[in-house]
C-alpha cells in the first residue's frame, strides 16, 4: 500500500515536470512568442523591456530559461502580469475560489444525478424511462454547451427574467442580509453549474447505465438474489459498488474537460473565475499569466486524478490487497 502510494507520488512529480515542459515549450516556440510580442508592443517602454528581458532571461537559451522558470514555479512565483504588473499568483488566487466552487458543485451534480439516471435506466431497461433518458442523454452529449448557455440566458434570463445571467453577485450584494447574500450567489450559480455539468452528466449516465447492465448480468448478482436479498439492495449494494469503482476514475478524467469548458462559458456568463481570466490573458497575450494559469490548471487536474487514483485504490480491494 505504502509502496503503491510512493510510486504514485513519483509518477505525479514526473508528470508535473512534463506539464511545465509542455506549457513552456508551447508558449516559447510558437510563432507569436514572448520576445516578438514585446518587440511589437509599443506600450512598453524601452527600459521596461530591458527589465523584462533581464527578469525572464529572454536573452538566454531555451533550456536555461526553462530551468530558471521551473525553479521559480516550484516556489510558486509565476512573475507579474504584463498588463498591470500585479503578481500572477495573486491574480490567480483571487479567481481560484470561484472556479473551484463551480467545478466542485458541477462534479457533485454530475456524480449524483449521473449515477441516479444511469442506475434507474439500467433497472428499467427498455422501459419508457430508459428510452427517454437514453435519447435525452444522447442529445445532451451532442449539444454545444456554449450555445446551450446562450439559449438558457435568453430563456431564463431575458424572456422569463428568473435568473441573473452574469457575474457571481448582484450589484447590491453588499447591502443584502446574510441569507440574501447566499441566495443571491446561489441564483447566480444555477445556470453556470447546470450548463457546465450538462455534458459530463450525460456521459456519466450513459456509462453507469452500460456498466450497471453488465454487472447485473454477472453471476454474483444471481447468487445474491438466491440468498434472498431484495432486488433494490442487490442493485444498490452489490452491483453499484462494482460500478462505482471506475466511476471514480472517470470523474477524475472529466476534470480537464470541465475546466476546459470553463474557458468559454465563464466568459459568456461573465463569471469571475480562472477560465475567464485565462481567456482574457490569452486575448491580451499576457504570457506570465497564461503560463501560470496553464501550469496551475494542469496541476490541479493532476491533483484531482491523483486523488481519484488513491480513492480507486481504497475502494477496490483487488488493487488494495494484491
Amino acid at each position: 500500500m505504502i509502496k503503491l502510494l510512493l510510486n504514485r507520488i513519483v509518477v505525479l512529480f514526473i508528470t508535473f515536470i512534463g506539464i511545465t515542459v509542455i506549457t513552456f515549450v508551447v508558449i516559447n516556440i510558437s510563432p507569436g512568442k514572448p520576445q516578438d510580442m514585446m518587440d511589437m508592443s509599443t506600450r512598453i517602454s524601452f527600459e521596461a523591456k530591458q527589465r523584462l528581458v533581464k527578469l525572464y532571461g529572454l536573452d538566454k537559451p531555451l533550456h536555461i530559461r526553462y530551468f530558471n522558470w521551473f525553479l521559480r514555479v516550484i516556489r510558486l512565483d509565476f512573475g507579474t502580469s504584463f498588463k498591470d504588473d500585479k503578481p500572477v499568483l495573486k491574480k490567480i488566487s483571487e479567481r481560484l475560489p470561484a472556479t473551484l466552487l463551480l467545478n466542485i458543485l458541477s462534479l457533485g451534480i454530475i456524480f449524483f444525478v449521473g449515477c441516479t439516471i444511469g442506475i434507474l435506466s439500467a433497472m428499467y431497461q427498455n422501459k419508457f424511462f430508459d428510452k427517454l433518458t437514453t435519447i435525452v442523454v444522447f442529445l445532451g452529449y451532442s449539444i454545444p454547451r456554449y450555445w446551450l448557455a446562450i439559449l438558457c440566458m435568453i430563456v431564463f434570463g431575458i424572456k422569463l427574467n428568473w435568473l441573473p445571467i452574469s457575474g457571481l453577485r448582484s450589484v447590491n450584494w453588499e447591502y443584502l442580509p446574510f441569507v440574501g447574500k447566499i441566495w443571491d450567489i446561489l441564483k447566480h450559480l444555477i445556470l453556470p453549474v447546470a450548463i457546465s455539468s450538462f455534458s459530463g452528466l450525460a456521459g456519466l449516465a450513459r456509462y453507469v447505465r452500460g456498466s450497471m447492465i453488465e454487472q447485473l448480468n454477472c453471476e454474483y448478482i444471481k447468487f445474491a438474489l438466491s440468498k434472498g436479498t431484495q432486488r433494490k439492495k442487490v442493485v444498490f449494494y452489490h452491483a453499484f459498488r462494482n460500478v462505482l469503482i471506475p466511476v471514480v476514475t472517470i470523474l477524475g478524467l472529466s476534470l480537464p474537460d470541465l475546466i476546459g469548458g470553463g474557458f468559454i462559458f465563464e466568459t459568456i456568463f461573465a463569471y469571475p473565475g480562472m477560465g475567464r481570466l485565462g481567456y482574457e490573458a490569452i486575448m491580451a497575450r499576457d504570457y506570465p499569466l497564461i503560463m501560470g494559469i496553464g501550469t496551475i490548471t494542469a496541476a490541479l487536474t493532476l491533483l484531482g486524478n491523483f486523488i481519484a487514483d488513491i480513492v480507486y485504490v481504497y475502494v477496490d480491494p483487488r488493487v488494495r490487497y494484491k
Partner: protein
Amino acid sequence: MKNNILEVRNVTKSYPVYSQLLHTKITKKIVLKNITFSLEENTALGVLGPSGCGKTTLAKIIARIEQPDSGEVLFEGRNIFSYPNKTFACMVQLLFQNPYSMLNPKLNIGFLIKERVRQYFKLNNTKVEDSTVNKKISELLETVKLSPDVLKMYPYQLSGGQRQRVAILLVLCLYPKLLILDEPLSALDVSLQAQMLNFFAELKQQFKFSYIFITHDENLAEYFCDQIIKIENGEILTK
C-alpha cells in the same frame, strides 16, 4: 530404441514482479524449478498437476512463447532458440485450453485456415496455386471431420465441438512433430471428450505425432499417455 525428440534440462523460470513506475524489478515469483525430462518420438507424455503449478508456463517455454531463466530445451538435439522462427513452426505447435480463444473472433474460419495452409506451403518453400490450397483445405477438413460450410462462418457461430476441431486443424496444418495440448478437454462435455481423445489417438497413429498432454485430471492422463510426470509448486514430484 526410439530417439528422444525433446529434452528439457534443468529449466527454471520465474516471473519478475515489476514496479508500475519505471519498470524495475521488485521481486521474483518462481514458477518452475529445475525441470528435467525427455520425450521419445511418437509418444504421449502427460504433465499432471493442480492449477497454478506452472504447467502452462512449461508449455509456453517449450513452444518458445517464453524464455526460461536458466536451463535449456533441446528439440532433436538442438536448442529450440537456435531454430529460425519458420523452421520451428513446423516442429512444435501448441493447442490452447479454450478452443474459442484460439480463433480470432473478427476473422472468418475460411480466412484463418487459408492463412495457415498458405503458411505451410511457404514454410516448405513451395509456390502453389489457389486450387492446390483449396484441395489441401478440403483434405484437412475431412481429416478433422468438418463440413466445408464452416469456412464461411465466424467463430461465434460454431458449436463447441466445431471450434475445437477448427482449432486442431489450425495447428495440424503445419504438420508439427510435437503437439502440446494444454488442458484441451477440461471445458468439454463427457461425450465430446471421448470424441476428442479418439481423434487425438488417430492423429498420433496417422501423423506419428508426439504429444505433451497437460491436464489436472489423473484419469485422463493415465488413459491417454504413455509416460506421466507430476508437477507441484514448480517441481517434478514423480515420473
